[in-house]
């Protein structure tokens, strides 16, 4: 950076109030980063802030060079350790952010010149932008907007005259500036062409959320229910009933010692690329806004065809993204509900979908053999399984007993008979495979909640579900949901209806409220719809959406057109600002008391005692005194206060005096009116 501090001619010191604002600013912009920073970065930040505060108070000195070297070394070691401990990549976004924040905190300690202050201000803007790589909710955006105003206020404070720096004044000016910049920003946001990434960058990592690619039902003692949003869906046509919505995500084909996982994926080497013979059926068309999952799998209704780029169809009719979903991901899908998936099954696939561990679950093996003997027809066999779940005392619960890893199916099917969707789906698939029927477990979400305000569907983590798919001659893959046999309410009305009292205890407070069906629920709908619109129009506004929107708006997209619109929009928004700046409001001119006195002069003019043009207050009041037959000395205190106020460089420090003058002038007006009466 160049000699930034040379430009005022009043030295390079930072005004104290401006510095205080700067320190506040720093705290405000770092706070949201607390969610993904290690605790020690926070400690370093707090220590630096405390030190700077002591310097500010004049109790401590600035750190010496050695202490600075020590601090920087410690910070570097700290970041290094952090990378090791949290198993982050050295070039991950988290590491970079931690480094940025530490550097930011250390910079504050040594901030003393205007140039330092500008470095801190620019870093603040940068830290604000960085936060959006981790979170993009409306609440965070609103918070960061306030932070931008605060940072700008610190910058304004640096450029105000020292006599006029007051934090509130700087804040007001900064807020006005940001407000006036908003229309132009909007124009740029809408029309600035969105481009493809220039090079690949590390995206925020973090724990996987939602469903995972391996499931061990027996391990789970308590299924915690989160009301976090998994994804939102907007249907082009009518919204289907939630009961019919099975959002397929992951297909678990492989079973090993109680754990279900995704089977080996066979690619084009074995099989020609999957071509759907759609025929003439009309698809159900919708758009999904998926929250980050850190996985590649996407969710769609049965037999989907991807419309958006970057989305592909797999051999088991799932959709996957080209890259793990690390930020809000938007994709359009056409789903063909009537499509018959896999009219014939290739050998390798049949082997995969009937694979079973031998030598475990002996009771289940015997049970399946007996049942298959009784029901040679495959459909009958499967129906018998469902019937058993329906009739026997099976129980749906979120607090199932644990199962052993080897004979988990046996234990569940014959002993505990209590579990949630994956238990039932796993046992069902296992028993189907024992009878030689190709079957697999599918993980995803079932149902969803229609927001009455916008008509979109919200699918939350507690809608996570697992079910089974079996392959039948002529019918292809058929979905069968054993959970519907044990807890039909779960499918019909959602999780809430299927819960028992002990299950409810595992719900978070917010989820419980959501199920309460009160006014608060309405409010939540409203927030939800707001958040949805935010996701669609702001967070999800990408080149694709921009293109559609601009085509709609301009009736065609060409660089010239966009350039012209941007130019025109920019000109109009700046012209508005210019108008507000250069428009001179004559009546509002001058000192507030000057105005008051002008009004006073006019009022007395109506009573027959006009003030001569440019007559000084002193001269005019002397004439008024004479006119009212008062000794001139009576009005002296008033005249003196008035003059002190009019020519005082610090006008708002003497509110007292001002009130005195205003009262005095009012009394004179009254006396003038009375004099005319008599």
């Amino acid at each position, binding site marked *: 950076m160049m000699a*930034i501090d040379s430009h005022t001619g*009043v030295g390079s010191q930072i005004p104290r109030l401006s510095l205080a604002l700067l320190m506040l600013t720093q705290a405000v912009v770092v706070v949201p980063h607390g969610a993904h920073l290690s605790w020690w970065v926070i400690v370093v930040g707090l220590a630096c802030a405390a030190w700077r505060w002591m310097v500010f108070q004049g109790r401590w000195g600035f750190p010496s060079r050695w202490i600075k070297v020590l601090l920087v070394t410690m910070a570097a070691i700290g970041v290094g350790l952090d990378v090791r401990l949290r198993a982050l990549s050295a070039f991950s976004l988290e590491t970079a952010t931690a480094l940025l924040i530490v550097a930011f905190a250390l910079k504050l300690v040594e901030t003393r010149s205007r140039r330092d202050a500008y470095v801190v201000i620019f870093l603040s803007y940068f830290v604000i*932008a960085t936060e959006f790589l981790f979170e993009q909710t409306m609440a965070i955006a609103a918070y960061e907007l306030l932070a931008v105003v605060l940072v700008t206020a610190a910058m*304004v404070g640096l450029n105000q*005259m020292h006599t006029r720096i007051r934090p509130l004044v700087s804040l007001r000016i900064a807020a006005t500036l940001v407000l006036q910049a908003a229309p*132009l920003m909007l124009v740029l946001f809408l029309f600035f062409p969105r481009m493809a990434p220039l090079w690949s960058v590390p995206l925020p990592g973090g724990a996987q959320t939602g469903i995972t690619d391996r499931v061990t039902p027996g391990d789970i003692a308590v299924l915690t229910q989160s009301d976090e949003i998994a994804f939102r869906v907007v249907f082009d046509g009518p919204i289907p009933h939630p009961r019919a919505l099975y959002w397929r995500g992951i297909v678990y084909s492989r079973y090993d010692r109680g754990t279900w996982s995704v089977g080996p994926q066979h690619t084009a080497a074995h099989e020609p690329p999957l071509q759907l013979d759609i025929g003439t059926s009309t698809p159900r068309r919708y758009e999904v806004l998926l929250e980050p999952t850190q996985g590649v799998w996407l969710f769609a209704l049965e037999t989907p065809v991807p419309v958006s780029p970057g989305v592909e169809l797999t051999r088991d009719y799932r959709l996957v993204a080209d890259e793990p979903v690390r930020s809000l991901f938007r994709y359009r899908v056409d789903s063909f509900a009537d499509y018959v998936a896999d009219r014939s099954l290739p050998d390798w696939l049949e082997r995969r979908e009937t694979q079973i561990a031998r030598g475990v679950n002996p009771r289940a093996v015997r049970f399946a053999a007996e049942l298959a003997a009784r029901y040679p027809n495959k459909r009958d066999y499967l129906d018998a399984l469902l019937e058993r779940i329906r009739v026997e005392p099976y129980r749906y619960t979120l607090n199932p007993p644990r199962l052993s890893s080897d004979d988990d199916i046996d234990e569940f099917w014959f002993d505990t008979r209590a579990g949630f969707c994956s238990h039932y789906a796993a046992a069902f698939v296992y028993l189907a495979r024992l009878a030689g029927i190709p079957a697999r477990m599918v993980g995803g979400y079932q149902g969803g909640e229609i927001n009455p305000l916008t008509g979109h569907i919200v699918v939350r983590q507690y809608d996570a579900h697992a079910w089974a798919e079996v392959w039948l001659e002529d019918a292809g893959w058929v979905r069968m949901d054993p959970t519907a046999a044990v807890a039909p309410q779960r499918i019909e009305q959602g999780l809430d209806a299927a819960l028992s009292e002990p299950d409810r205890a595992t719900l978070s407070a917010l989820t419980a409220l959501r199920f309460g069906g009160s006014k608060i629920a309405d409010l939540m709908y409203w927030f939800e719809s707001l958040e949805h619109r935010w996701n669609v129009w702001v967070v999800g506004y990408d080149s694709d959406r921009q293109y559609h929107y601009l085509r709609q708006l301009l009736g065609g997209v060409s660089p010239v057109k966009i350039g012209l619109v941007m130019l025109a929009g920019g000109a109009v928004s700046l012209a508005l600002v210019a108008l507000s700046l250069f428009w001179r409001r*004559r009546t509002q001119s001058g000192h507030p008391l000057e105005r008051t006195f002008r009004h006073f002069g006019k009022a007395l003019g109506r009573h027959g005692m006009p003030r001569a043009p440019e007559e000084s207050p002193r001269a005019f009041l002397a004439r008024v005194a004479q006119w009212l037959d008062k000794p001139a000395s009576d009005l002296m205190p008033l005249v003196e206060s008035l003059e002190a106020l009019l020519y005082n*460089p610090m006008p708002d420090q003497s509110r007292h005096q001002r009130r005195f003058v205003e009262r005095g002038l009012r009394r004179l007006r009254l006396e003038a009116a009375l004099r005319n009466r008599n």
Partner: protein
Amino acid sequence: MEQAAKLARWERSERFGRWLDRRIPKSSRITLSQDSIFIFPTATGFVFGGLVVLLIIGAINYQNSLVYGVAFLLGSLFLVAILYTFRNLSGITLEYVASGSGFVGEPIEFEVRVARPSGAGREGVQLGWPDSIPQWAEIFDHEAAPVHLYVTSSARGWLRPGRLLVETYYPLGLLRAWTWVDLDAKAIVYPQPIFGAAPDASARQRDEGVLVDPKGSDDFNDMRGYRPGDSVRRILWRTYARTEELIVKEYASYVDPRFILDFDAVPGDTEERLSRLTGMALTATNLQREFAVALPGTFIESGLGSAHLERVLRTLALYGIDDGD
């Protein structure tokens, strides 16, 4: 810090000066408008621009709408700041009010009145000549304010501080709006006085016969301590011999109608002579002694008092200088 140090070379060049003369003609009262205000980003402003570009690149690579939002908001802020910074100078009236006078090497005061249009106050406006320390104009609460600037001259004669730099960085410090106005201000600078040789040293040659014997003078009035510049002849040597104290006699009116400070009678080159005469004139005035001044081509009749002194100093200051305007 003096402003001269940070002016770019082109700003000091003669061509730029001539161009400015055409664009903003010399006048003692100038109201700034878009014709006369320049605006350009500061170094800080360029760094800010770099930050915006960096954010846009980040937004493209991360495909992040909200980072785009921050970048666009900052960019817009910059554009709005252009209007603010420009507005901060626009409409301001500068008027040259008065100037003081002084000797070479002394700071000489100039008063400039800065007035703004009624309405919103202006903040952080400063003015200064290249050789002066810039001053703030306090025109936020008041519609007009006087600004006192001090310029030190190194040569006698007319001091024309030249174009006045009016500038502002308000509100964000990212942009600088400035202008150069020539208010046609000038002040007179007297020669730097040299005290030392007695004023009568030069006078004696012509006035020997007329000189009154101090001892016999009726006008002898008072005695006081010796001050540098006093005539050696007026020292009471007898007192000195007794008390070793230098006492001089003073006269109510030193009757010497022909006490002349003569340019030709003092040593040195022209400037040194003028400096010596200045010193003498000051001393003579201090001693309440009437004096006349003889310069080649000019003669100022004998006189006393501040008006006389000023006339003498002015003549000395402008000696040999074309009093153009």
